[in-house]
């Protein structure tokens, strides 16, 4: 990597993910009281965009992705009226979420949306991006598992989303697999083809401990939006930890408008006590990053491993080998069943 560029004075819009991506790490069990406590503290700390929804976004409540404690509408109704400055956003994955649910999100005060597709399937998003723009929302094209498409291919996909109306294109490192050089070439390729007014964003996972380094690399190449999660509460080893990212930005003179000490306090006093397990790089989450597997698969693989007597790591590696992508959570139990059969672990169970 070349010498770090001088980023002093660069403005970056941070977008907190703890109340959406963090839902994965909490098995979708966050109460409205906790949502309000976290969101108001984020707002107080100057975080401009806060994502609030089921971990899988609009339409996420399902057997496939788990049922949250409350509907998305109940979460928004609890959080939106409490916001002084921050805007609330949501996630929409076409094939799961629909325009009906996007309309409902808007009606309940959501003003920004990540419209997410796998990094090669941008053309499943035109309806939803156009609809978000029609509603006057801030619309982002969110290219997931971005390590599975090369820089040129990713740029073409981003260009498609821009043509549907997306105002920002995100490189989404869902597996926490990317290294700074991977991020740099993808941001460059996008910057080369997108209109100057179209922003570039980066959404990291910390599975290889690269969340902050990757985010800084993205900013160096021209990204102006960064997703992070306060206390790192997110799928896998969590997202780029927001408070650490803000501290690094302060050192580098990057302008985020966020209050570091308030975010530290929120992390220590509210987020850490909320965690069911310590969200960190451990055997399973490191496997995700190393093998390039969708971060959300972590807890599902842990559960299937326990149920069928298999190491979660073996299941995750097999899912990576079979090139399973985000949304295929059903294939975790299926893969575990097939592996258990092959290993003679299902003797007395007909399956």
């Amino acid at each position, binding site marked *: 990597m070349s010498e770090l560029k001088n980023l002093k004075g660069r403005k970056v819009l941070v977008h907190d993910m703890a109340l959406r991506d963090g839902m994965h790490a909490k098995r979708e069990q966050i109460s409205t009281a906790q949502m309000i406590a976290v969101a108001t503290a984020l707002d107080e700390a100057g975080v401009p965009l806060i994502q609030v929804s089921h971990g899988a976004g609009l339409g996420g409540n*399902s057997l496939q992705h788990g049922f949250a404690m409350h509907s998305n509408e109940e979460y928004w109704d609890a959080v939106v009226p409490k916001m002084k400055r921050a805007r609330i956003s949501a996630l929409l994955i076409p*094939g799961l979420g*629909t325009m009906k649910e996007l309309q409902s999100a808007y009606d309940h005060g959501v003003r920004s949306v990540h419209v997410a597709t796998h990094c090669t399937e941008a053309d499943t998003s035109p*309806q939803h991006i156009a609809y978000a723009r029609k509603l006057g929302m801030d619309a982002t094209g969110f290219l997931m598992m971005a390590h599975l498409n090369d820089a040129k291919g990713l740029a073409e996909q981003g260009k498609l989303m821009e043509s549907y109306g997306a105002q920002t294109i995100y490189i989404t490192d869902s597996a926490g697999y990317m290294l700074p050089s991977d991020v740099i070439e993808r941001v460059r390729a996008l910057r080369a083809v997108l209109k100057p007014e179209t922003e570039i964003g980066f959404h990291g996972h910390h599975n290889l401990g690269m969340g902050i380094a990757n985010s800084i690399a993205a900013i160096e190449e021209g990204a102006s939006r960064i997703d992070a999660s306060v206390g790192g509460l997110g799928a896998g080893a969590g997202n780029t930890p927001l408070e650490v990212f803000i501290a690094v930005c302060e050192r580098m003179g990057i302008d985020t408008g966020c209050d570091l000490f308030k975010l530290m306090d929120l992390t220590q006093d509210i987020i850490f006590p909320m965690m069911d397990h310590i969200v960190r790089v451990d055997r399973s989450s490191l496997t995700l990053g190393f093998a390039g597997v969708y971060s959300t698969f972590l807890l599902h693989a842990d559960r299937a491993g326990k149920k069928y007597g298999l190491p979660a790591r073996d299941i995750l590696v097999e899912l990576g080998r079979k090139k399973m*992508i985000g949304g295929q959570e059903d294939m975790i139990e299926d893969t575990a069943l097939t592996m258990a059969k092959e290993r003679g672990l299902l003797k007395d169970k007909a399956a």
Partner: protein
Amino acid sequence: MTQKIKCAIIGPGNIGTDLIYKLKRSPVLDPVWMVGIDPTSEGLVRARAMGLKTTDQGVDGLLPHVLADGVQIAFDATSAYVHKANSDKLNALGVLMVDLTPAAIGGLCVPPVNLATHAKAQAMNVNMISCAGQATIPMVNAVSRVQPVGYAEIIATVSSKSIGPGTRANLDEFTYTTSSAVCAVGGSRTGKALVIINPADPPMIMRNTIYCLTDDEPDQERIRASVLEMVKEVQKYVPGYRLVNGPVFDGKKVATFMEVAGLGDYLPTYAGNLDIMTAAAALTAEMFATEILAGRYQLTAVKEAA
């Protein structure tokens, strides 16, 4: 030579092209027209090479030939947005529509579940729901015919190469129609459909997971027997329909994990989603054709809606 019913196919994409192969093998159906809108489309060239008459003027290009060429059944493989207009024009000439778009203006048909009821209905439009619906609704029904199902959820994963631009651009219609058919035909009180498009190369075979929540404790033995019987029914027209794992019982949740391999007619065998749609449509049309040939089904011209 036995008599065959002449058919037209609208939409020379993946589904329309695969359908030609299926119809050509049928003892009672004869594909004679392929309708497109793009003179340079590969699909029209291929249809001509396979001996079909073609037009690039849309359904309007077909209409003057319907009576002269004796077309009695048409398959619509275009998009939900244009289906109604196509159907109205052809119904007005007494042509029965088999709809492969998610428009769902006609009765929903999943052959092993409700083909017989459509034979009695004497309808002029029947809808095939979606590939995901065809692959999963038989399994929902296999459980719901044993005991009440309050909620069913289906997850269909298809290979990127098998999903054409029409479906991609209108994914919401696909999920809405499939969700409602999971209830209406599958027999659950509420339902949800999820679709995932996987770009792995080599392409992955179509996979489907079907979850059912039964009201009471599931009767494991009867459900297992019902599932296995239903798999055999589907295999009669899609031999590559296979139970990979399950049924797995977890409290009141019943999970079945399916795989669908195609015959490899137009796209390779991974595209089972194509086959289960076209084979179901062909089977449905064959039933109508048999009834028409036996004089039991009256095709009646339906006045075009104003």
